């Protein structure tokens, strides 16, 4: 059932507007040379941080369609009726969300890095830190989507919740991108691991709580 749920969520993601977060990501990156000027050393210096900020804002876009449609349509209830734990449902949603969010964002980071005149080495470091970081962001997005599902204007509330909670990921992810300190990437990975491991429990409790 979990495999079928992941396959279904990936299919729904792909037939929906999967490309919007990636396009938004690229658009934010493309605005930077207009805002700070086409000065190559400055762009190279801010490049990794810009990609991270763009990834964070792009992660906000899909939140509203992650959990709420399935709650409103009774899909979450039917999965529970079939004996699937809410935590397993949330885990499946995290996997499916990352599959439709992470890889596309990484592909969009290639032209993004070119727009910021980033060097090959800098791009590879940022790509690795984004690959790890998007997994954490996907977990956070599903947890927050579950917590805010059923609220009016849940989208803006979700943004207010996600951005502060993503700060630790941003700090170490951006540090790993500039190769500042050798422990930045392990610490970023640890935070991602914490989010991946914790998010299903937060989301599961929120899904159960929304029923009463």
């Amino acid at each position, binding site marked *: 059932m979990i495999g079928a749920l992941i396959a279904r969520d990936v299919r*729904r993601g792909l*037939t929906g507007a999967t490309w919007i977060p990636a396009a938004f990501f690229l658009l934010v990156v493309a605005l930077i040379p207009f805002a700070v000027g086409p000065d190559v050393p400055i762009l190279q210096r801010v490049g990794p941080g810009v990609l991270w900020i763009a990834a964070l804002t792009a992660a906000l876009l899909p939140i509203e369609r992650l959990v709420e449609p399935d709650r*409103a*349509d009774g*899909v979450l*209830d*039917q999965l*529970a*009726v079939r004996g699937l734990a809410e935590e397993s449902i949330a885990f499946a949603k995290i996997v499916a969300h990352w599959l439709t969010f992470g890889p596309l964002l990484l592909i969009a980071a290639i032209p993004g890095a070119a727009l910021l005149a980033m060097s090959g080495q800098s791009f590879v470091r940022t790509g690795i830190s984004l690959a790890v970081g998007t997994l954490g962001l996907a977990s956070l997005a599903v947890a927050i989507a579950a917590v805010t599902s059923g609220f009016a204007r849940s989208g803006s509330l979700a943004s207010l919740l996600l951005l502060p909670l993503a700060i630790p990921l941003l700090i170490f992810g951006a540090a790993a991108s500039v190769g500042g300190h050798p422990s930045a990437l392990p610490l970023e990975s640890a935070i991602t691991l914490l989010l991946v491991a914790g998010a299903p429990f937060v989301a599961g409790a929120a899904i159960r709580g929304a029923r009463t």
Partner: protein
Amino acid sequence: MTALLRFEGVALTRGGRLLFEDLDIALEAGEALQVAGPNGSGKSSLIRLAAGLLRQERGQIERSAFALADDQAALDRELSLGRALAFWGGSPGPATDALGIAVLAEVQVRLLSSGQLKRATLARAAASGAPLWLLDEPLNALDSDGAERLSKLVAKHRAAGGAVLAASHQPLAGDWTRLELGE
């Protein structure tokens, strides 16, 4: 004979209001129970309690494998009805035949009328093969043909050793035990 659904001394409060207490239900194979009562008397809550989606305040609930059909279709709107039903497994063929929606298998769920969607919801529950059906307002949006098909399907299910618990404020065709809430 063991009961497919058993409530013992069950009490439920919602939003600080006691909906019912000391409720005993024993539903055995072949039996059908209609929960009736005015709006807000706790019919739907009783169904969700039986489905384990709500927690009782007091008492014991035991249930066998079951299927739930309420007002939420849980069918992906962008898929054809056939594929949307297939996601939930079981064998939807006979159930869609019985409810007269087999011809709609290629139609997208989002294009179905509310009555057709209700039939599809009931077909999803019937296709599960579970011995216990929990139906919340099964007659909502159904026309007379749909209601007749439903009563035949319920009769067949009971004859095959199944049991049905339905919440409805309308009279259901067939031989139902009645439980009045909110009196």
